[in-house]
């Protein structure tokens, strides 16, 4: 499994998964679920850069996700901006908000950082909920279709490929970042901020950069989901969605890009499988979250990797 460690190994695995999976899909429903997995995985890859590499927690990342989602809804509907430009605008504004709140927020440590990011996420969700004349309030609003090269993007199969390519690009960018001076600086400050500072790393600046990058990832994923679903609701920016994203990161494995995909896959497909339990859905979801965290604490991918390479932890 040595090739899994390299940058190109991860990309190869990802490409094979995206290319080969459709062979096994019996119906469009499966393409739809896979598309949802790719979209969540994209947001999780970004959040994993922040959590897994820089060691900073964000309990409000769904806020950025929601900004991207609402950008492609509000932009075309109320301002006449084409969907693609609106998505770019959404990513830029999420990055801008992250840049503005990032500096004071990222000074905080541990639980204080958790509560500050949580508050930020909740504020964004409340804004989307309350400004009904723009956002449709708690019911959400419809999203116009995406047109690429004069062609309407619609149907799960087409979206499967669009989002698959987006995830591949996202993973490629993330892997390069991890491998850059920025990535090494982040890992250094993860271990000890003081030691990193002594080593000549501008801790505040590096944390801010990765916070902005992860916000942009979330916003792009949000735009994709809104365009795919044709509908946005404030829940996508809500606290529970933030928690889902964090759980995907930890479940898949902190600091593992492939883990982000696995975490997203488990947490997206699980509720689909649980719908057979009807009323017991929440009960099961809560139970799974607890069991995963107690028994797979280090995440699925790092645990498996150690198993396969024969290392005993």
């Amino acid at each position: 499994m040595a090739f899994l460690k390299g940058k190109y190994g991860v990309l190869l695995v990802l490409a094979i998964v995206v290319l080969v999976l459709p062979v096994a899909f019996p119906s469009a429903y499966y393409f739809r679920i896979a598309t949802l997995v790719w979209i969540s995985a994209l947001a999780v890859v970004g959040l994993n850069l922040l959590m897994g590499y820089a060691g900073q927690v964000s309990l409000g990342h769904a806020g950025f996700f929601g900004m991207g989602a609402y950008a492609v809804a509000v932009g075309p509907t109320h301002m006449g901006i084409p969907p693609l430009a609106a998505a770019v605008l959404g990513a830029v504004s999420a990055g801008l908000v992250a840049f503005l709140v990032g500096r004071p927020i990222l000074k905080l440590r541990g639980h204080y950082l958790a509560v500050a990011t949580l508050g930020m996420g909740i504020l964004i969700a409340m804004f989307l909920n309350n400004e009904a004349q723009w956002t449709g309030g708690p019911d959400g609003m419809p999203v116009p279709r995406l047109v690429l090269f004069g062609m309407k993007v619609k149907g799960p199969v087409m979206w499967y490929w669009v989002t698959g390519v987006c995830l591949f690009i996202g993973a490629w960018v993330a892997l390069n970042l991890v491998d850059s001076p920025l990535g090494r600086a982040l890992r250094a400050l993860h271990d000890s901020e003081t030691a990193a500072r002594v080593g000549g790393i501008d801790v505040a600046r590096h944390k801010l950069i990765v916070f902005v990058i992860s916000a942009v990832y979330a916003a792009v994923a949000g735009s994709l989901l809104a365009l795919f679903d044709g509908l946005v609701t404030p829940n996508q920016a809500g606290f529970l969605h933030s928690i889902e994203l964090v759980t995907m990161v930890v479940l898949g494995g902190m600091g593992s890009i492939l883990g982000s995909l696995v975490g997203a896959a488990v947490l997206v497909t699980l509720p689909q499988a649980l719908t057979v339990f009807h009323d017991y859905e929440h009960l099961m979801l809560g139970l799974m979250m607890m069991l995963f965290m107690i028994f797979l604490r280090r995440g699925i991918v790092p645990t498996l990797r150690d198993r396969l390479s024969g290392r005993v932890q």
Partner: protein
Amino acid sequence: MADFLQFAFSGLTVGAIYALVALGFTIIYNASDVVNFAQGEFVMIGGMVTVFAYAAGMPLPVAALGSIVVAVIVGLALEWLAIEPARDAPPVTLIIITIGASIFLRGLAQIVFDKQFHSLPAFSGDEPLRIGGAALLPQSFWVLGTAIVIFIALYVFFTHTLTGKAVLATAANRFAARLVGINTTFVMALSFGVSAAIGAIAGVLITPITLTSYDVGTLLALKGFASAMLGGMGNPIGAVVGGLLVGLLEAFGAGYINSEYKDAIAFLVILGVLFVMPQGLFGRAHTERV
């Protein structure tokens, strides 16, 4: 003036509930370094169990007592089954576990009870007292009175009893506490039990005013957590002040500025305070050791 009094009073009432939830957070955090996001579920259990036991014909005080017992059992089970096995996990993992627990308990309540809103009769009638032009509900006095009794009881417990001091010692340094013979496992269980009881009492008290349902816990937990952080995590007095402050800010914000953004005001203020004082109002600064 009448408006001011009205807002101040309703702010203090809700604030007292936030303070109780924040205290629950603080007690568990001090004993175990765990931020228990299921804290709001104890409030829900307090309200819901009382409602259903009362509807089944039990007298209100017995139903309330029963709900506290149920909450304590749930709290102990949570500690024993979910927290203890993950003792040495990183903080994020523990946060996810407690959030998983809260989703689980909410799902359970949805099945055992129902998805409706429920109320209880106020303990001393619904006839409002007129003071300075403001209408004050008798139930609010019950909330404030009981909260004050709990604050004093906890203060006495932590400063004047051996068990209370053992909890404080464990909070200061778990390893050292164990070295001097304190049973830290017992202290952990005790802190979850006490927190659950406080939460359930808050749930019983507030139900006649704000109603209860299976999902009231989430927002209460978020605001209780925010209150505890506002005061400075781990500081009981900070938790009480933080809770009352959040309650007052919400009431005045909703009354004078904008009621749609009532829930936002608390978080805006908390962000503002943390920007200026990164350790909360009463927190101590930490230095990182390399």
